[in-house]
Each structure stands twice: as C-alpha cells, then as structure tokens.
C-alpha cells in the first residue's frame, strides 16, 4: 500500500500535474507520498494549523528508490493522529530523505493569519435538539456554526500537498479558505479507496457554488452504470493513471 502511495505521488510529478492536494486522517502517508508541503490540523481548540515544507520539494523521481530503502530500514515513520507524532514523522521522513548531502531547511511557520469567518447554517429545532442540548448543557437556537481552521500561508507553487488531521478538523474546508488555487483534491481513506473526490461542505447551495467557482474545485466524477472503469482510461495516459493507483488495466 505504501508503494502505491509513492507511485501516485511520482505519477503526479511525471504527468506534470501541479497543485494537487490530498487530505487524509492517516499521517503515515507522509514518507510515501513525499508531498511538497504538509499542513497538520490539530482539530481542536483554536483550530490552529502548522505547515511543513519539504526541503527537497520537486526532487526527481529517480531518487525515489533509495529514499524508500532508507525510510523502511529505520522502521518507525508511522504516526498517530496527534499533531506531535505527525510532526515527528514529517521531520523523520524528510531528514532521512535528505541524507545524501542535501541542504535540509525545514521551514515551519505557525499560524499567524486572522481567524476565518465561521460557516453558519440554520436548522429546524425540535424535541431531539432541545433534549440533547439540555442533557449536555448546550444552548442551541437552531444556528449551527463551524469555525474553519486558521491557516498559515500555503505556498503558491507546489506539485503535491497533503492535509493531515483528525475527522472533523476541517480538511475539506482548507482549499476553500486558502489563498492558493487547488486544481484537484483527493481524499485518502484508510482502506485504500484512493482518488475519490472530496465531498465539499454544503453549508448552503449559494455559498458552495461561489466557493467552487472561486477556487476551481472539481465537480464529482460521474461513473455510468454498466460501463467499465477501464473504458474511461483506455489511452496511454489513462493506463498510466491506472497503474499509479494500483489498478489493473482491465478493471
């Protein structure tokens, strides 16, 4: 599975696809995906985030094999969902990768931007909301609010970026609030379902439309029933894409 992650990252670089962002709750993809930056969302409190930049951003894929060997042989580059462990994994992955006399310049920029405007939505109140609110001493008048994470300045020039954070930390909201343009965004699930486009926050229909048009977020890919996946990807480029995600050509 790790090899596949690395293949995808390399494929994006070989295809000259740029500004691709992956979102995952599994921080252990960092050493394999070798993204140009990792944004770690802590998912609690002030909803702050920390941005790590890969010191070897854009290194050619020919350096890929030694990179893997080094990382695997040292064992523990896996991380849990805590940001402390995630930071450790980033440092480990990138410093190991940089062993071949590459200047290591880890740039960590803590959040300095102002808090983004909270997203709000109104829902109907009923006995269920009232009773749940009372049971947990939570005042609720039907207005639900979500505070998106406060973000550092995401680099404008990158090939592959990775968002890491626990469920509900606002990973899907990041491209919406970032100043950078994101071409494609993928969600990486723990069970290898790679390449599923994220479901965008649907706070209200008007806002979603605006956000999509402003930030070039792609629409969900449609798949026709009764048509093989391979038939969509029968060209040489398509076959390369299938290999990158570890699927056979006849899928």
């Amino acid at each position: 599975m790790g090899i596949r992650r690395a293949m995808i990252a390399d494929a994006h670089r070989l295809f000259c696809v740029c500004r691709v962002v992956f979102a995952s709750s599994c921080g252990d993809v960092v050493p394999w995906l070798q993204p140009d930056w990792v944004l770690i969302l802590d998912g609690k409190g002030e909803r702050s985030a920390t941005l790590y930049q890969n010191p070897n951003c854009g290194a050619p894929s020919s350096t890929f094999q030694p990179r893997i060997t080094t990382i695997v042989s040292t064992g523990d580059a896996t991380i849990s969902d805590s940001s402390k462990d995630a930071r450790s994994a980033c440092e480990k992955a990138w410093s190991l990768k940089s062993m071949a006399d590459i200047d290591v310049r880890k740039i960590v920029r803590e959040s300095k931007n102002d808090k983004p405007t909270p997203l709000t939505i109104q829902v109907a109140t009923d006995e269920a909301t009232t009773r749940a609110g009372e049971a947990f001493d939570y005042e609720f008048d039907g207005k639900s609010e979500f505070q998106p994470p406060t973000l550092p300045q995401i680099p404008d020039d990158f090939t592959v970026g990775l968002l890491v954070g626990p469920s509900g930390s606002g990973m899907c909201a990041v491209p919406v609030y970032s100043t950078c343009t994101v071409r494609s965004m993928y969600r990486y699930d723990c069970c290898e379902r790679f390449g599923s486009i994220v479901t965008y926050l649907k706070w209200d229909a008007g806002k979603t439309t605006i956000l999509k048009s402003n930030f070039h977020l792609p629409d969900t890919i449609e798949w026709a029933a009764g048509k093989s996946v391979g038939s969509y990807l029968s060209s040489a480029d398509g076959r390369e894409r299938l290999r990158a995600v570890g699927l056979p050509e006849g899928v």
Partner: protein
Amino acid sequence: MRQAAKTGSPVKKTTKAEQSEPQHVADWNTLSFSDSFSVGLVLGESSSGKTSVLRRFFGEPQLPTWDQKMAVVSQFADPATGAHDNKGAADEAQDRLSSVGLGSIPTWMRPYGCMSNGEQARSRLARQITDGAVIDDFTSVVNRHAAWAMSSSITRFIRRRNFKRCV
C-alpha cells in the same frame, strides 16, 4: 435475521467446538454462517471480495436518507431504530450517536451535509445498526484511533441491545 430471510442466505447452527476452529474453504461461496451471532467481520485486502461476500450472504447495505434542513440528532424517529415518538427518538439519537464515537454536541446539531466525511460515516452507522445490519467500508474514513474507539463502543451497543447478524 431479516436480511438473511430476504436474501435466502444459507444458515447453519454450529457447536462451540466448531466455532473455535477456523473454517478454511477454497471458495467462499461454500461458506455458511450461524444464525445466532451478533457481530461479524469480513476482512480482506482491497478487491478481495468483501463487498461481494456481504451481498451474497447478508444483502445490500441499507443507507439512511437525510433531511438537509434538520439537525442530524433530529433524524432518528425511525421505527427501524426502535424510536416511535419524539421523546424516544431524542433518547435513541443520543444513545446511538454516542455509541459510534460521535460525542460532539455541536456536531449533532448540524445537518448531515455540513459534517466532515468521517462524521457522516459515523452518523450513517448510528442509524444503520439494527438486526441484520450490513455495514460496508466500516472505519474507512476515520483515523485508526477513532476506528478502534468506534469499534469498541459499537460492539458494546450491539450486544447491549441484543441485535443479531450485524456484519
């Protein structure tokens, strides 16, 4: 039971001695399952046929529908969940949402479309669990620690309610 009857899947009663030994078969089509288990788990790599096994023996997953103008906590007034009145539905919602590890009250108050992917998966699971429930892609969109906590609490919930044949 309900799913088994619907799909006509083979049902076999096994002894404790038989249950303690793993049963290896060359073709999973020849498998048989006890009719009295509470929680079953199908494990396998991607493309190994997990979904096919579920369909063959236990039926299609029943996905709940969501009203986007209502909070998630308001959408448990479903006879299938055992809640028939408003008071019962409110208690049922709190019990079920807590049992899938979704303990954040502000999250309960959001409509389904305003939740993250992981929160949506847990909300779906909270409504899906009943006799004969079929859950595909279980824990696929939450991190490992959340998955462990969710598994532990959902199995306690199923056994406490004495639900059968949840896979």
